[in-house]
């Protein structure tokens, strides 16, 4: 029993937060902020987002909070995400059965005119000596979004807008690409978003009271333009400085949608320079290519390959991840995801090849 419990807690390391599906950005000729309360995309859905959720479900159902059982006033949005997974995982010593919770989080937003206040409350693996540390107020911010132009301002605790910001466990681009899981900071963001162009500039400082995955202070820029209705190109730059390291990085994102075969290709590439205090300067690079194929209105398959070189001065330490995810939006609020990953070190010559095969259940409150 102890071993099962230990396994559960150990594999909370696979946790992920609700994010977004950029697959709907070009395929529906919309922007992330059309469906999400946050101008950074991801997280709590607004009324348009709920309508989209209803549209993509295989079976009918009310997409509103608690399936419409509770009528909320127009100024209040409430939601939540619950995820759990089971399957087989091999971390280098052979495959083992795993079952674990991934996310348990509630969110609420109050809107009056152009101003929104949003907060989340959820759980995270606690310090065994401090049980109260299980509670995590991951995001809390105030946002002003112009009702007559594309300008918006947001301030509070949230992850700086950077990279593709998708829900897929794109391990390479998220952990090593400047958008780590639970990487929220205290941030101030200025953004412009319209139908063909968006730009987000964020200044941030690390949370000194409840530290997140981002320990540095710095700034991030993400800008993306629609060259055509089916093609978007983005550029990004990020800098963070902590007591232990300075990190500068930048790159590009390209997305292309083909309406006929219902196929999206999204590519990302970055260069990173890391200066480690009292140690070394190392150059890194990463690249990621994801192909998404819509099999139906309610199901899409994505296949991705990502590579990260943590230090170009070393051989056989590069990490390559091949991911396959099948998403099925079943009944209202319920998504099933079948995921598989193969992970190679040094393209197979730098250590054991590992991976997993999981079935994830995602319930959106």
């Amino acid at each position: 029993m102890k071993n099962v419990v230990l396994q559960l807690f150990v594999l909370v390391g696979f946790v992920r937060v609700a994010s977004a599906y950029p697959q709907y950005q070009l395929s529906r000729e919309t922007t992330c902020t059309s469906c999400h309360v946050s101008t950074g995309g991801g997280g709590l859905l607004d009324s348009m987002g709920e309508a989209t959720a209803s549209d993509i479900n295989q079976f009918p159902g009310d997409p509103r909070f608690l399936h419409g059982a509770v009528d909320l006033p127009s100024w209040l949005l409430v939601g939540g995400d619950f995820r759990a997974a089971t399957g087989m995982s091999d971390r280098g010593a052979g495959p083992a059965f795993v079952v674990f919770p991934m996310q348990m989080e509630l969110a609420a937003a109050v809107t009056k005119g152009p101003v929104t206040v949003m907060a989340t409350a959820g759980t995270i693996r606690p310090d065994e000596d401090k049980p109260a540390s299980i509670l995590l107020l991951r995001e809390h911010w105030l946002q002003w979004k112009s009702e007559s132009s594309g300008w918006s301002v947001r301030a509070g605790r949230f992850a700086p807008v950077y990279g593709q910001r998708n829900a897929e466990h794109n391990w390479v681009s998220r952990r090593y690409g400047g958008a780590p899981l639970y990487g929220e900071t205290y941030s101030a963001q200025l953004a412009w978003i319209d139908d063909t162009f968006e730009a987000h500039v964020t200044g941030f400082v690390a949370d000194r009271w409840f530290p997140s995955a981002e320990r540095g202070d710095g700034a991030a820029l993400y800008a993306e333009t629609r060259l055509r209705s089916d093609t978007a190109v983005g550029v990004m730059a990020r800098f963070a400085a902590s007591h232990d390291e300075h990190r500068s990085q930048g790159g590009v994102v390209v997305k292309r949608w083909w309406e006929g075969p219902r196929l999206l290709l999204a590519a990302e590439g970055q260069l990173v320079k890391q200066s480690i205090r009292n140690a070394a300067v190392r150059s890194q690079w990463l690249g990621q290519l994801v192909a998404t194929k819509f099999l139906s209105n309610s199901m899409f398959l994505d296949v991705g390959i990502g590579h990260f070189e943590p230090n170009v001065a070393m051989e056989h330490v590069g990490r390559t991840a091949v991911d396959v995810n099948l998403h099925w939006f079943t009944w209202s609020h319920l998504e099933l995801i079948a995921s598989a990953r193969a992970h190679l070190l040094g393209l197979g010559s730098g250590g054991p090849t590992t991976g997993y095969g999981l079935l994830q259940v995602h319930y959106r409150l």
Partner: protein
Amino acid sequence: MHMNYGNRALIALALGSGCATEAPPPTFDYIRTAILAPSCATSACHTERSRAEGFAFDTREAADEALAGLVAPGDPDGSWLMDVLTTDDKERRMPVDAPLADEEIELIRQWILAGAQR
């Protein structure tokens, strides 16, 4: 250290952009910041917040405290850190999501063998 042509080209690009790159030193600061923190101090594991098994690697101070109990200076084979990084035990092998590269583990071994100075 031998590098392939791809990485040489990237170094040229990096150098051309004013970025230097160096072979990694087997030191506490490098190992902690470049290897242990990104691989072990992830969102719900060995951070100061979660302290899985009582260990954290996301700050120098926490890592210093953790490694004092995890390594036997001069004795890599007698160090619990090396054991969990290389064991064939499915439940104890670390990290939980993907292993460290052999060269990264070797760097840690060299550091321990040299006395694990912090």
